[in-house]
Every structure is written in C-alpha cells, then in structure tokens.
C-alpha cells in the first residue's frame, strides 16, 4: 500500500489520473473502517487532508459552494441558515467525533443509500462538481446516484465541492434509527419548500437502492398548494393534502428487509416523516420564516 499526500488539488488530480484505483481519503470515517476491518486493501490511499480549499465554503447569490471536506460539525455551526436541511442532517450524522471529520464529499463518494446528507441535497437541489486532469464537470444531484453504493464518478475523477441551492424557504430533515444517537438511518427524509418556484422538493434515504426523490409526491403537493392559492395565502394545508403527500412519499420507496429494519416499516416511516416534515416546514412558511423550522 502506498500513501499519497498531494499538497494541492492539481497534484491530487494528477495522482488520481496515474492511479485510478487509488482510494481518496478525507475524514476517513468510511475508508478507515474498511481498512481496519480488513475489508479493503487499496494499492494507494490518496489523502486529501492537506488541500485547504476542500475544507472551505462560500455563499454565493444562488448557491453555497461547499468544499467536499467541510466537516459536518461546521455545516451545523455555520450553514444552518443557508442550508437548513443539510445542517439538520449533519447534526444527525453518527457521533460528534465523526461529525468533526466526515464531510459531504465522503457521503457522495461512498454513495450509500443510508448516507444522511443525500436526502437534504436532493431536497435542496445541488450539483456535484467533479474534476479530473481531463477537466471539470457538474453532475446534477438527481443524476449522481447510479446504484447501491455506486455514483456517476469516473475512475479518474475526484469530488471537489457541492453546489447546493441556498434555501429560499423552510427545509426539514428527519431520520429514523433504532437508537437516539449514533445510528445509521433505517430510513430518512429531506424536504425543502421553494416558494420562489412554487415547488417542493424531497429526498428519501435508505428506502431504495439509491437516494431518490419522491417525484409524484412533489408534483402532487405543488399542484395542491398552487390550486388552493396557499403559497400566497399562507393558510393551513388541509389534512387530506398532507395525508396524500405522505402516502405518495411512502409509495416512492422501494425498500428491503435487512438487519436494521423491515421494508414495511421503512415505507410507513417515510410516510410519517414526509407528513411531519412538510407540516413543520409549512408552519414555518406560514410564520414567514425563510430558514429551518
């Protein structure tokens, strides 16, 4: 095994081009587990820890440019206003120690359906900026997840940052686990109201082979809200609308039974979380809030 320590981004891209099988190492919260447990013996470890720009974020007019290695703890502490769903999800990640090391780049690189960041990114809207020596490209988050623990990265590419749409309305995130802290999601749900475009976006975690949106539920809700003029009136949403939205969100799942939960409970819980997160967000919207409820 060889330990590669690029001092800058260009060196990292060159190293990845030379050793496409090299495993990028950032917070280590996935990769080191696999090494400690003997599940993985890469020929090269590519330490991204010395590339300062990966740990920086910047708020633009429309989006937040979030470095792949900005740890979750900093997202919680520094970006709660701009990225409320992601900040809520970040606070639910594993433990304080992990939140001090892990970042969104790792979640995206691993692309586990249980990664906590995914539903929030799907709900907010995001693009993943990846780069290789051949050039850079931005992959829409909806096209990023291609299978169980598979993503749209090419072998020579590295994740540089994520461009996450700044919140213009309330956002929420919930996750069901069988412990009250330090638990991998049985399933999770992210939701963002986008009052500007009169849309609602969602993200479902750990209830399908990949993180995914509940497209039909989103469309239904956008229609129902528009039809009744609720975006403008900011009146309460009829219970039937929330109920239907929940049912459609549950219907968007294709969960499995595993050691962490049953398919049936996952589907049910996604429905409950969809209803609750929507009602929290709508309540915040009614009260004029722009950030998280």
């Amino acid at each position, binding site marked *: 095994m060889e330990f590669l320590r690029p001092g800058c981004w260009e060196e990292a891209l060159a190293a990845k081009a030379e050793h496409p099988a090299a495993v990028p190492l950032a917070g280590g919260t996935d990769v080191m587990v696999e090494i400690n447990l003997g599940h993985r013996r890469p020929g090269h470890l590519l330490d991204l820890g010395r590339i300062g720009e990966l740990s920086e974020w910047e708020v633009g007019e429309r989006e937040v440019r979030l470095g792949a290695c900005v740890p979750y703890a900093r997202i919680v502490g520094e970006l709660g206003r701009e990225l409320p769903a992601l900040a809520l999800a970040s606070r639910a990640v594993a433990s304080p120690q992990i939140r001090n090391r892990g970042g969104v780049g790792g979640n995206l690189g691993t692309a586990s359906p249980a990664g906590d960041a995914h539903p929030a990114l799907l709900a907010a809207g995001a693009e993943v900026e990846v780069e290789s020596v051949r050039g850079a490209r931005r992959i829409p988050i909806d096209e990023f997840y291609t299978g169980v623990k598979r993503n749209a990265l090419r072998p020579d590419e590295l994740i540089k940052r994520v461009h996450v749409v700044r919140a213009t309305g309330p956002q929420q995130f919930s996750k069901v686990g069988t412990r009250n*802290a330090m638990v991998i999601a049985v399933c999770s749900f992210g939701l963002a109201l986008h009052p500007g475009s009169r849309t609602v976006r969602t993200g479902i975690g750990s209830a399908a082979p990949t993180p995914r949106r509940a497209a039909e539920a989103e469309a239904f809700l956008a229609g129902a809200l528009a039809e009744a003029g609720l975006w403008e009136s900011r009146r309460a949403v009829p219970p039937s609308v929330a109920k239907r939205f929940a049912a459609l969100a549950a219907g968007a799942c294709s969960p499995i039974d595993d050691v962490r939960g049953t398919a049936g*409970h996952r589907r049910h819980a996604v429905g409950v979380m969809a209803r609750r997160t929507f009602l929290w967000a709508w309540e915040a919207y009614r009260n004029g809030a722009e950030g998280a409820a």
Partner: protein
Amino acid sequence: MGTWTPTAAGLVPAGLTQSAARGGIGESVRRPDGALKVTGAFAYSSDLWHRDMLWGRILRSPHAHARILAVDVSAALALPGVHAVLTHDDLPAAQKTYGLELADTPVLADGVVRHHGEPVALVAADHPETARRAAELIRVDYRELPVVTDEASATAPGAVVLHPDRDDRHAYRAPHPNVLHRQPIVRGDVAAAARRADVVVTGDYEFGMQDQAFLGPESGLAVPAADGGVDLYVATQWLHSDLRQIAPVLGLPEEKVRMTLAGVGGAFGGREDLSMQIHACLLALRTGRPVKIVYSREESFLGHAHRHPARLHYEHGATRDGRLTHVRCRIVLDGGAYASSTAAVVGNAASLGIGPYRVEDVEIEAIGLYTNNPPCGAMRGFGAVQACFAYEAQMDRLAAGLGMDPVELRRINAMRQGDLMPTGQRVDSPAPVAELLRRVRDMPLPPPLDTEDPDIRDLPGGLANTSHGEGIVRGIGYAVGIKNVGFSEGFDDYSTARVRLEVVDGEPVAMVHTAMAEVGQGGVTVHAQIARTELGVEQVTVHPADTQVGSAGSTSASRQTYMTGGAVKNTCGAVRERVFAAGRRRFGGDRPAWGGAGLRLDGGKVVTADGEVLATLAEVLEGEEPIDLELEFRHRPTEPFDPVTGQGFGHVQYSFAAHRAVVDVDVELGLVKVVELACAQDVGRALNPLSVVGQIQGGTVQGLGIALMEEIRVDPATARVLNPSFTDYLVPTVLDAPAVPVDLLELADPHAPYGLRGVGEAPTLSSTPAVLAAVRQATGKALTRVPVRPEHIVD
C-alpha cells in the same frame, strides 16, 4: 492491574496502594485504581507490550456447520514475518477440548465446525497486518452441513446431532441428545389449583440474544518461560477456572502456567468462558516468543458466549381477589453449539421461573438446547433475566384480566421472608418484595413532556429530528425480580484471601492478596475497606490478582463481595487474633485486659470493648515477623435440585429489585425514549454506597438495552451472525439512557458477611419488563418479544 514494568523476567504489575484515615465499610471510598484509570496509565490486557512480541490471530469458520475436508497452511507459513501457523493437528496434548462445565469445546476445530466463528487455525506474525494476511492465505475446504437452530429443528426426527457421543452428567436426563439439560420443578397439584382459578392468562414470549458488549476486547499476552512453562497476562473473570482448562491442553502441570490478571475492560459474564487464553499460550510455546492477541470487535461478537435467547410459555391463574392459584411454564433456552454454562442457566431459569411470588402449585420445565447458533452462556442475570421478562408480562396480563392495578396484584402475591420457593427452599432472610414495589411507586414522577417547546434531544428519535412532540404518548410500567447470589445446586463455592500485616517505618500496613478478577465492579475498593475496618489500619495495598494465591472463584453471580469480601474479612479476623496473641505474649502479663473478650483493632491500636487503648499495632508487631495468612472461606452449602421434582435447597441467597419505567413513545414511528427508570433494591448492607448505586444504574441500563435495541441477529437459514459490530449491535448511548434514581434498602441477611446481599444482577432483571410494561401502556400493543423493534409498535 495497575502499572506494569516489563523486565527480563516478564511483566511485573504493581499493587494498588491506598491510604485513608477513614475509608472502612459503609463509606463511598474512591477506587484505588481510579487515578490510573483517568490518566490512561491503567494497563488493560490489550495494552500489554513486550520486547520481541508477536501478534497472534485466529482464523474462524465462516460457516455455522461444516465438515473440514482439508487445511493447507503452506502459503501462510511462507509469508515473510509469519512465525507459526497452528491447526488442530498441532495441539500438543491428548486433551484437545475445554469447557467451563463440560469439556466439549475444541481448542481448534477437529474436522467439523459447529458454529459461525469457531476457531480453525492460529497464526503468529510480526505485525497484525501480516497475521491477517497469513490467516487469509490459509486454505480450508469446507463441506457445509445442515444446521439446527431451534427446538423444532434440533429435536426433529433425523436432526443432525451436534455431540453424538455424549457421556456428560446431564446426558442421562436429556430427552434428546440435542437437549443439553432439562430441569423440571413440580410442587403441589397444578391441575387442582387451576380449577380454583377465576382468571387464567397464557402467553408466549420470546427473548432475543443479548451480548455482554463489554468495551475492552478479549486480549492478553502469553510469555514463554525458561522452565518450559508460560506466563499469561489476561483479562478474565476467574483465573483458576481458566488455569484448570488451559494447563491440560498445553500438556503442562498447572504450576507451569502462571496467570496474572491484566486490566479488565468490563465482563458481565462474557469472560467466563475462555477466549484467546489457550491460543496465545500455544503460539508462545511454539515460537518461543511473547504473543499478544487482541480480538477485533467482530471477533469479540463471534468469539464469546452470549446471553441465551429464549422462548417461554406461561400460564398464570388467580382467584377473583387476585391471589395466584398456580403457574405453569416452559422455558426453552438456546445454548448454541457448546455447553458453556447452559446447564446452570437452565437451573436458574427453572428455579427462579415464577418470580418473587407465593404460589403453592407450580409446574416448571426449563431446557437448554444444543444448536448451531452461537454458543450462549453467562451474562448478568443468568437465566433469571429471560424468565423475569415473561413472568412480569404475565402479571400485567393477569392484572388486566382481573381489572386490578398491576402493582396491587404484585403486592398481594409478593413473597415474604419464610415463604417457600417452588423448589421447596424456605427463604430465610428478608424478602421485601412488596416494600420495594411500594418504594418505586412512591418516588416522585418525572415532569410531563414539554410539548410546547421540546428539546429534540429529550424526545424519541433524539438528534434525528423525528418529532417535535407529535405522536408521543407517555407510559408507566412496573416490574420486580428475584435473583440468586452465588453458585448454586451444591457447587463447592469458596474463595481465598491472603492478608499480610506488618509494621513498616513505624506504621502498620496491610496487604490483601486474592485472585479476584476486578472487572470494574469495585472489588479492589471494597477489599481495602474491609481490611481497614477489620484491622484498624489506614494503609492497605491490594496485591495484583494471580494464581500464586488460592482461587477466588468467579466474578459473577453477584458473588464477589459476599465471597471474596467474606474471605478477606475472614482472614483479617484470623490475622487480628494473631495480633491479640502477640500482644498477650508481650504485654498480657502486665495488663489483664489483654485476656478480656471483645478486643478490637481501631485507628492503629488494640482497643478493649470499653474503648481502653492497650497498645499500638506498632508496639505489638515491632520486631515480629509479618503476620501472613491465607485462608479459604465458604458460604453455607447448597444442594442439587432433584432431577424429577426440582426440589432442593439450591441457592445461597436471594436478591430483589424493583423498577418503575417512564417512557415516551412515538406511536407513529415506533421510537422510544426512556425518561426514567427508578429502582429500589435491597442490598443488605451497602459496603460502598457509591459503587452500589453505580452497579444498579449500570445493570438497569443493560436491561433497557435488551428491551429496546440490543440483539445478536442470527440468520435462521444459515445460523450465521448478521450483525457482529457496534454499527448494528446497538447498545444504549447517553442520549438513550434515562435518569436512574436509586432507593437502597438495607435489610441484613444474617447468613452473609456484614449482612450484605449481592447487588450486580438483580437490577438487570426487572429493568427490561418495566420498560416493556411502560411501552405496552403507551401503545396498547401486546409486545411479547424483546428487543421491541419499531415495527412491532407500529404494525
């Protein structure tokens, strides 16, 4: 234990010396090992290091049942840095199996593996990674065999028999060779009593496989010695039991296997069986180099015996006024592939199977199975835990059937001193069952949930932000339990203590030397307290535990303060008599008071019953040889349970605890937050109240764990363990742990040293059913299985 100095002769642990003007029994003395533990200097078994040390590794079976057709170690041996690879064929002695009770466990698999994770081969190498790669290079050809995984499959016609040539002492009573042990208990006339019942309730319950999940992984260091023997430094619960099992398979006499207790990172029963002890010794003896083995967490989950999962069927009857008429029950415990302590667990489950209640007419049957599931053995509560979960659920069910308050039903039927157990044993010390229930019921309730502005960290789901107050229902539940203390059924249970008293630089100092395994429970603290109380000295050194002194028995069964504490008290008493004799010899001629009764040692002086100081210890012992005595201590004898009726004076002592659980349940998502678990327990006498409360709180939260989240999941089709990691075997975090207010009752047991009662296990019993009762109240669900999973609450 303590700090270690590597020397040419091996590792030399230091004793723990503590000096305190006060600090006798009854005081919350600080731990003598505490300063080392908070500075990182305390040497746990995984911390040991030796020059030229090699790393040992164990290759384990990926299959739960398979024949081994061939093993090829040549590629592993050829790897640079590998010093030895051993298989069953390399075992040096005729004895190739071991076991706590029955020697049915192969040191290395002998042609067949019977459970997932069974050790097959050993490697010693210069680095853990080299050892891991070498283990991967060992080629084992398996032919998989069918598995038996429960009572039905294990006793079906044509079922594979795990141990076909059994000749153990339980075999003649077993209805099937895959039934390791069966214990019936029959008293009175159940059929007649059942006819008097106005209400009868039945229930089927299931208890999942819990793991001890101690944090310090199994580990130790074996150092080959010049005399052909080996020095073994290891974390265990019972040094002498290990020694008895280790020496024969090494082909060494016991005196050539010198064991010293290394720092133990928790135990809870999981270190009663051997783990890496023999393997490290074999590798050390083969290579001539010190060998360290440290289990990974996965290996720890695969490599030690768990708590028996159980299926339990109960029938309770009562008259309309709430008096129990009868109880019938059948308890099936899955012992897995090897015996471990299953037979004793069966005896406990049976004899404690109806709980702390007065019932004249009882029929109980408990059996322990051999299956291809992971071996199960000792864990805190030992057979009584599974039964308590079921009989307390039944008491609530019966209360509902009678339209009676569940606490009142328990009070009406609560056992009292002088009552008979189903085994016919008279309970001859306080049994304050009703009083404990009254106390937990009368404790102030926690405030209701703040639904206006709740902190998500106080809610079910916690940081995962699943509720802001909606869907949450509070529930309250009660439970009480009974646990035996000490080893039962006629076992010759004893402990040994060596105490040395001498004057150093004009000060009297005591040294206490036992083989007691300090696993965190605080025995070392209590031993120093006892020595201070009995010998009237300030400075006490607790000698490292090793096999150079007689056996202390196991740190289990809530027995160590009773047994080794009792042994220390007993030996101190004999030392004290020597002091008085020396004083009489020196000064008795001048002072007739030396001949009087009631002399005691206090504050470094010999004092008469009237408080007159006769001499200082320094004056008495000056110029004398140190007084140094080693004595054994026994509790009163017990007897085996009758094989047919289960009658017999089987248990030394009983302990009782009651819990009240308050829970908030998100009934839509099935998530639970335990708000409070109040406990009242009779401890006889709290020798160290701070430690006693710590034991009760810790046991209580382990009970919460099995109620709500902890379970080793085994695939019923393959008998493979599905979740051998802390990622998927969930133990409670601090955000899951409730407030645990504790009310100590101290009613002396006249048979026990200082009147004390073993405390460690009872709180683990009643915690689980109390949580379940509270969740049932909140949800209205029957919930007959633990751990409760969200889908059980929601579906």
